[in-house]
């Protein structure tokens, strides 16, 4: 019996009173919608609503009694500290993500070439920085950065160099924050890249070796293009998380010295919560959105294009 005949038969068959409702609930699209409904509710409650409320808040005055349109943004744009925060956030996020990506890639390669048994042990150890709550591990780093009693300065003194005021001078404080962020985040890149490396067929490397590729050329022409999607997605994800980083700056420097190590999240917290100007804090937070939206657009477009071509 053909599908057409079957559908005609079904339509002609006598239906009980609740037939149309039953048909509606049995449709695949209805079932799919009902099954995704819990997730949609979570997204609406925890993402869409707070985001929309954030936009609404950013248009209010300090006492949150009346709308001032884009007034909060205009004030921010006239503030040197805000532009410092924009600059610092970009430097912090880009430097940290590049360092995490490179170190993660290197670690993944090293692990990939260790036999499976030993690999599991090393993989577990290398993931430790990522699984410790960052607030706790950053506290440990805070101790290590202490100018007088720290282990890092002790090691530096062994080679005869003067102690470094890690958290006291802007340039060192920025470096200190990036180092901790890289320490925490590199294992994530490592595990993602390791999974990607394992999915590259060994025969491609063998074909490249026979084609005449050196080790570096195999990396450039086989490994990197084959991992391009994972690299892009991981970098985008890390960029978003790093831009929104709060805890490391809060624990290590609290934005100091002289507000020169603030990033968007810590500055938004300072302006919105500590200084009591919630609408302007919301405006600071929202400033990340267009930067990340542009990055996400280009990265995801590249991923889609590559998927179409290769998968």
């Amino acid at each position, binding site marked *: 019996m053909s599908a057409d005949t079957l559908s005609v038969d079904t339509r002609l068959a006598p239906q009980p009173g609740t037939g149309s409702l039953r048909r509606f609930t049995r449709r695949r699209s209805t079932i799919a919608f009902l099954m995704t409904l819990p997730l949609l509710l979570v997204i609406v409650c925890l993402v869409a609503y707070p985001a929309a409320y954030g936009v609404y808040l950013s248009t209010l005055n300090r006492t949150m009694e009346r709308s001032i349109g884009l007034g909060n943004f205009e004030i921010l744009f006239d503030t040197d500290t805000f532009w410092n925060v924009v600059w610092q956030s970009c430097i912090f996020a880009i430097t940290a993500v590049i360092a995490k990506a490179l170190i993660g890639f290197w670690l993944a390669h090293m692990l990939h070439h260790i036999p499976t048994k030993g690999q599991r042990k090393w993989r577990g150890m290398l993931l430790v920085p990522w699984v410790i709550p960052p607030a706790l591990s950053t506290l440990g780093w805070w101790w290590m950065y202490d100018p007088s009693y720290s282990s890092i300065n002790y090691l530096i003194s062994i080679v005869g160099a003067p102690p470094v005021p890690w958290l006291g001078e802007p340039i060192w404080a920025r470096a200190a924050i990036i180092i901790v962020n890289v320490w925490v985040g590199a294992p994530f890149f490592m595990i993602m890249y390791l999974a990607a490396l394992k999915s590259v*067929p060994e025969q*491609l490397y063998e074909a490249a070796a*026979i*084609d*005449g590729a050196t080790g570096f050329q195999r990396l450039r022409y*086989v490994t990197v293009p*084959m991992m391009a999607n994972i690299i892009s997605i991981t970098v985008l994800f890390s960029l978003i998380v790093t831009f929104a980083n709060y805890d490391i700056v809060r624990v290590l420097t609290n934005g100091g010295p002289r507000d020169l190590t603030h990033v968007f999240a810590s500055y938004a917290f300072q302006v919105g919560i500590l200084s009591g100007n919630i609408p302007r804090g919301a405006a600071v937070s929202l400033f990340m959105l267009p930067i990340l939206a542009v990055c996400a657009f280009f990265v995801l477009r590249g991923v889609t294009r590559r998927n179409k071509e290769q*998968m």
Partner: protein
Amino acid sequence: MAQVSLRKIVKMYEGDVQAVKGIDLEIEDHEFVVLVGPSGCGKSTTLRMIAGLEEISSGDIAIGGTVVNDIPPRDRDIAMVFQNYALYPHMSVFDNMAFGLTLRKFPKAEIKRRVDEAARILDITPLLDRKPKALSGGQRQRVAMGRAIVRDPKVFLFDEPLSNLDAKLRVQMRTEIKKVHQTVRTTTVYVTHDQVEAMTLADRVVVMNQGLIEQVGPPQELYHHPATRFVAGFIGSPAMNFLPARVENGAVHLPGGAVLPIPEARRARYAGAPGMDLLFGIRPEHLTDHRPGLPNRADITITPEVIEPMGMETLAHFHLGEARDCCARLEPTVLAEPNVPIVLSADMNNMHLLDAKSGRVL
């Protein structure tokens, strides 16, 4: 173009597993040699050692007279076609084929000329701008061959290149490979587990078993004069029948009482056979329907268990005494039926007698 020499090649894996147990093989310039054998016989390992993808535990491999044991694959001037094609998915067909030349810094015009020429030979010119994803299995295999051809290497290595194709395409690609070899005449080493591929493609077939070479020779020689029971059973489809036998008074005595006289021309060869534990080997195509009057034929009565009409022939499966899974090839016009006895004619000019203990063909 080059000779390939394998001298006492051994490959040991961890845990003292010996994949290749000291093989010697000389492959002549322009020759098409096929390594064939069951899974795990060491044929792919041997090919990968020639390619430089596996280290040699002991022995020497020479390409064009130069020992290449310690030379990396890129400097051996070989090209390889893999079972899974191993095309770079992010590159177009043109770039895939040009990759080896680009790495060797060939001028762009020369790269284009070579790729266009290979594409013309393989009939893939319209596909040059496509990505591998947009190609069928057969087209991908052609591209993989094109990648090998453009390099104009000393040796082509094929590692079961047709295993992933369907039966019809496999036959078509087999012909393509033979045509390409007849055109470019590059020394070729081809690995397969399919004896039909081996027989149809090879100038010489190397039959391997358990890490050793059982026999090397042209396809017809292997078919007509197998050296061992393994080769006799491996070459030919359906496989050769083996029946326990003894030789007395110039005749082969089979279980069930059948007595098959040995042709006069072969008697001297089997002079030492009486008293030995023997196997009588005969191919299904030499065990046909009854044809009275033909010289050197012997009659044998069997009871078919299963009849398989194939169109151009009919296969009759039977057992004779302890020998099970025997097969005869009958003319399609013969009206054979299961469980109805039938008289067959054994072509005794094409029989084989094997030492049951050593498996050597007498």
